[in-house]
């Protein structure tokens, strides 16, 4: 099953500062995205149709550098997943180059601005100003599979991991699996920031009442640590990544049933 090739968003309003009191109010396009498998936070990225290469702010770049993103001199490369307005995953655009910029004189700046190269180059954007909205249309090959209503919905990170593993990115996929598993933990365990294997194991075992599932969670966490911190020869194989995917779904399903 595939999802729609088009997704519609509201335009974001802006009112110029007082010194431009005669300038009209305007709207601009922004969309929710996730960058890479490891960083699960949703960011609203501004779209700039005149920008040749996407940009990210220095502070975000520094953060991403600690979570395994590729760096090529003054540019960064990150996998971009576009979300629908309800934050369900919609498009996997793939690796997008980002120019790292510092907005001097501003306390903060837009962390991500999306431009043409490897992003808008693939998409068609239609503005509907009377409705203050815009629609992005994408090629079918970028569309993420729609969740079946009959299945237990998996966290977005697990869906992303599935696609990454299918595309041969085993380390990134395994890293994303653990993020999905953390998202599926019972809300009572929120606020505990540890992602250690022993912490995961104890939470999963106590939540499901099945120590074997706790052991499974430990193995997933160990594999993730090998994927993220291990050397070149220690990266997960395809078989290990696919086994970890099945194991993660099994643990998440058990957590959901016990909730």
């Amino acid at each position: 099953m595939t999802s729609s090739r088009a997704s519609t968003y509201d335009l974001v309003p802006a009112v110029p500062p007082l010194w431009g009191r005669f300038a009209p109010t305007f709207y601009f396009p922004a969309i929710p995205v996730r960058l890479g498998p490891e960083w699960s936070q949703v960011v609203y990225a501004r779209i700039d149709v005149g920008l040749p290469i996407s940009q990210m702010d220095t502070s975000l770049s520094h953060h991403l550098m600690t979570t395994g993103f590729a760096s090529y001199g003054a540019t960064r490369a990150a996998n971009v997943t576009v979300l629908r307005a309800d934050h369900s995953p919609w498009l996997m655009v793939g690796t997008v180059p980002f120019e790292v910029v510092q907005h001097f004189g501003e306390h903060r700046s837009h962390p991500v601005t999306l431009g043409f190269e490897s992003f808008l180059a693939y998409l068609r954007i239609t503005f509907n100003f009377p409705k203050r909205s815009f629609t992005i249309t994408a090629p079918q090959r970028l569309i993420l599979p729609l969740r079946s209503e009959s299945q237990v919905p998996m966290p977005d990170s697990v869906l992303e991991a599935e696609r990454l593993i299918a595309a041969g990115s085993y380390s990134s996929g395994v890293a994303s699996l653990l993020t999905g598993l953390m998202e599926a933990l019972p809300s009572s365990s929120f606020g505990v920031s540890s992602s250690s294997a022993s912490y995961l194991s104890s939470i999963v075992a106590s939540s499901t009442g099945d120590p074997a599932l706790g052991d499974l969670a430990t193995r997933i966490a160990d594999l993730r640590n090998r994927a993220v911190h291990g050397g070149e020869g220690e990266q997960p194989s395809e078989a290990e990544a696919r086994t970890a995917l099945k194991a993660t779904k099994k643990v998440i399903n058990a957590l959901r049933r016990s909730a």
Partner: protein
Amino acid sequence: MRVFISSTVRNLASYREILRLALEESGHTFLGMEHFAAQPSPPLDVCLAELDTADVYIGVIGDNYGSSPPGEERSYTEFEYHHARAHGTDCLVFIMRDDALIGLDTHDHDQHRRELLSQFRETLMQNHTVDRFSSPHEVAWEVLAALRRLEMRRSEAVPDGANT
């Protein structure tokens, strides 16, 4: 203006993101806990110190009372509001409508915290003329419009020649 956005974060993340975009594109500075770097001080102290640098406090109140500092009953959001009032910072308050477009499972299940939220909302409505919102884009509009009114009021309050 330096605008401090006070709200719960977990259930209003998209609201805060849209507000951040709208404020920054409009030439304001968004101040919020998303940007706090690791610091030795407790989170509440960091929040309140950042609030002290703000020109205006914006309270965006949803259906969740939010988390509290260790050992305290009052939430971070409520601490921030009372701190802003005590320091004479202009407060603009926006309260979510009951039909708001938000996930179904975001409200407090704890009855006591629901009561605390209810009391906090009552306090806000007694002290301020509040605006209501149902979506991130709606509250962004309302905040920008309120800031513009505040800017104009402030500029009109400056006597002629005061800036020369």
